[in-house]
């Protein structure tokens, strides 16, 4: 495309965005505070008024405990009240508090089935007064995710679909496309051995497998701290910049 054609396309995009009335909201993002990750995301962070998907990868597919803490960390950093929709009440609230989400900020909805769960999810996104809405869903169709994405845009709320599977085999269905803006896969990685006996800070392998208007990437990070912030892995951060960049295996 020539330069003038680029300009025309950019102009058209701008005008379409203005019709939608989401030009301003689209720009609001929630940065991770980790430059290596933020520079990979369009706008420099997670788009606030949109739907994101988080799932446990590898060994974490069934319990999705790491994915849950990752989602909790994001929700904690939005600063507002959080609606947490679930169907299986095996979540242990003190762990959320340790990931920066104080008990006074979380409102739980225990739905009896997936259908009413999605309904509550959408209702929470549409309300607009919440900081984030997290829902532990197993199935998420294109239609449902599109609805949720529109609700998130309308309410200006960050939505996180935390995918939970009954069985490791179900992970295959996860690969179906959804309307979410980003899709993260969180799997656990062995922690760095400490010089003394004990368990160090947990480490995650964070795969950004889908990102609208961005590229897929993969990171090794240290788990959320008490304020919900993840940190770039110190082992990699200590390397020289050239060697560090080699670790991003970007794939479309």
């Amino acid at each position, binding site marked *: 495309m020539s330069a003038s054609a680029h300009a025309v396309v950019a102009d058209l995009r701008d005008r379409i965005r203005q019709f939608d009335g989401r030009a301003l909201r689209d720009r609001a993002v929630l940065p991770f505070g980790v430059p290596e990750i933020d520079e990979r995301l369009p706008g420099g962070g997670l788009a606030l008024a949109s739907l994101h998907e988080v799932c446990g990868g*590898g*060994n*974490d597919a069934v*319990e999705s*405990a*790491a994915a*849950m*803490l*990752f989602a909790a960390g994001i929700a904690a950093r939005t600063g*507002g*009240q959080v*609606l947490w929709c679930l169907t299986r009440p*095996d*979540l*242990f*609230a*003190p*762990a*959320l*508090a*340790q990931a920066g989400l*104080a*008990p*006074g*900020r*979380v*409102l*739980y*909805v*225990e*739905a*009896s089935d997936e259908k*009413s769960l999605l*309904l*509550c999810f959408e*209702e*929470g996104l549409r*309300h*607009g*007064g*919440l900081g984030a809405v997290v829902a532990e869903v197993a199935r998420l169709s294109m239609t449902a995710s599109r609805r949720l994405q529109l609700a998130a845009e309308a309410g200006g709320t960050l939505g996180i679909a935390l995918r939970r599977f009954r069985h490791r085999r179900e992970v295959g269905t996860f690969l179906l496309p959804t309307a979410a803006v980003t899709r993260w896969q969180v799997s*656990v*990685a*062995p*922690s760095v*051995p*400490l010089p003394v*006996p*004990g*368990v*160090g800070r*947990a*480490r*995650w392998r964070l795969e950004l497998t889908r990102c609208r208007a961005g590229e897929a990437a993969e990171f090794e990070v240290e*788990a959320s701290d008490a304020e919900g912030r993840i940190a770039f892995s110190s082992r990699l951060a200590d390397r020289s910049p050239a060697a560090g960049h080699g670790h991003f295996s970007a794939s479309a």
Partner: protein
Amino acid sequence: MGISAPPPDARLVLVGREGSRRIVTAVSRPAETAGLRVGMPLTKAHALLPDILTMPADPAADAAALERLALWALQHYAPIVAPDPPDGLVIDTTGADHLHGGETRMLGGIVNRLSASGIFARAAIADTRGAAYAAARFLADPVCVVPDGAAGEAVARLPLAGLRIPPETVTGLHVLGFSTIGDVLAVPRAPLVLRFGALLGRRLDQVLGTVSEPVDPLRDPELATVRKVFGEPIGAPETIARYTAGLVHDLCKVLERRGLGARRLDLLFHRVDNSLQAIRIGTARAVRDEKRLARLICDRIETIDPGFGIEIMELTATLAEPLALQQAATSLIEEETADLAGLVDVIANRIGARRLYRIAPVESDVPERSVRRIAPLAPDDGATWQGRWPRPARLLARPEPIEVMALLPDQPPAFFIWRGVRRHVKCADGPERIFGEWWKRDVELAAVRDYFQVEDMEGERFWLFRSGDEEQATSGIGRWFLHGVFA
């Protein structure tokens, strides 16, 4: 009666008049065990037990008390409630039970709450009013839910008095050799109707549900109510929604005059075929906001079956609380906090208020006791869990036994097998010793759990514990369990 009420263990009988005779119309439980029965002459009762306490029966006061009880049920359980004199309540539970945790739990709750206030109650849910009447009065179980479509079988073995027919008819049927409802159902109807009248046939049909039986719902004149009567019956959901908005507008005006806010609204639909449909919504706080209330009701219009049309819509604020005008906070003085009451109401009306909660900390070291559910709009006191030990993201409902290889007494396991997978422990933290709470149960006096956080070769982290300190047998059985999964 207050302080002058007789003690509950008194042999109390109520005395009424039948012509010139004085007869016993009600007996207390101790009097019944002593052999007194309803319907016996007072002189006979005195002859049996000289020391009974008698009081005059007051049917008007009884009816008024039953109406108060019906009002209580109306405000707490379902939008369509009617007193069923002399001693019953009819509640149409359609669409109301899921807000109370299901039919069995709702019935159990009603019976428990009544018995807490000294009323011995029996309750049953069935497809038809007639079947529920018989099941509540004559089944052995005080709480009974008759499954869908099984009304006929459920009442077949119950006595004839469960049919709501005059005592003379019951006696006449007994003379003919009928003793249960099933006996009457099994024979041809015509000769019986010829002999005992049409009422018997109608009651039998009402038990089976082949004839509808409308409930005349209780309405308290003190409750704020607005009505809309239609010249032509309506049925389309959009039309219902439009008139609902109008009714809500009128009701809010009434509530405003009285200085009230609605906590519970009932919208009754009188259909042209003389049956009732209802929508009930509840709010977590008193509300007088037209838009919000209309939205809550309109969310549930899909549950209404208009049949051949609706001729009357009636909106009642069944439960209302004082709601004064309040100055809204401005952003100049304090930061605006989002009001979640609207969201809480919408969700609670859809899936039940019990399913919406916050989790608050409890001062307990035992993990499964350290959380409790509180109301979604409970004020935030900023409390959180104390202690720096990490807690797992997922806590298993019951600790699962695992096989381990561990060095005793204070070492974490070298490997363990959980759900058939063997995992080698790379590193571990612990033990964190948690003692039993002796003030809860005696066996917890010496109980001990030693918790370890372990990480396997893959980086997965688990929360294991050993029950007991391996020194005293009373402290635990010495087995290992897996209690939670970390990130």
